[in-house]
């Protein structure tokens, strides 16, 4: 899961090296915690959260295929 978010995030921020994704699995599914440079936060959230929402949509497809659930948190 984490590679997908990393790939997308790195492609749209100004500081790709500052992108970090932490993946945790528990009984509820997978939680991804995405951190980026402060100045890049707006770039991965987007207007009215549109970019974050689009990333969640793609994650949901991948999670559905793996029969699990995924949460994306932007730290």
């Amino acid at each position: 899961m984490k590679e997908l978010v990393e790939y997308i995030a790195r492609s749209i921020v100004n500081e790709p090296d500052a992108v970090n994704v932490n993946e945790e699995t528990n009984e509820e599914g997978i939680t991804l915690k995405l951190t980026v440079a402060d100045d890049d936060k707006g770039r991965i959230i987007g207007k009215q959260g549109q970019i974050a929402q689009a990333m969640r949509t793609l994650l949901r497809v991948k999670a559905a295929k793996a029969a699990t659930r995924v949460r994306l948190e932007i730290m």
Partner: protein
Amino acid sequence: MEIPEQQREIFETAREILERLLEMMDLPATVALCEEFTVLDDEGNAASIGLNIEGEDLGILIGRRGQTMSSLQYLLRLMLARKMETRIPIVVDVEGYKQRRCEGLRLLANRLAEQVRTRKTPFTMEPMTAFERRVVHLALADHPDVYTESTGLGEARKVVIAPKKIQAY
């Protein structure tokens, strides 16, 4: 159909990014040029580039009301804009879904226009996405008897087809 030289690099890069995304989603598929959504301007340059995702069992990539497909298109445009510093609209289709939907919408638009013309009362369509509304507006742009406009906000925005002249009684 050949992509003009100037836009070839944009197309190739878009295809690479999209195939990479699909691979990471565990849905390996191939991406081909979609002629329907690749539009050339008067000088022969591409004004928009259409990409069609081809493979088996891709319904999951379309999503409810095409939502997953829209997310893919939205992210791809962003990623491409960063990489290429260009703003050519990219249209992502899955298994020709959007193309079929467009053809269906054009037929529907013309049928409704005929109904509006004979009944002389406006007709309001179901809420649709910006792209779908555009298809309807364009389909009826040159219609002699009806005009179209969009009303409502956000998710609920819909097209109204109305008669051009109000008959005097």
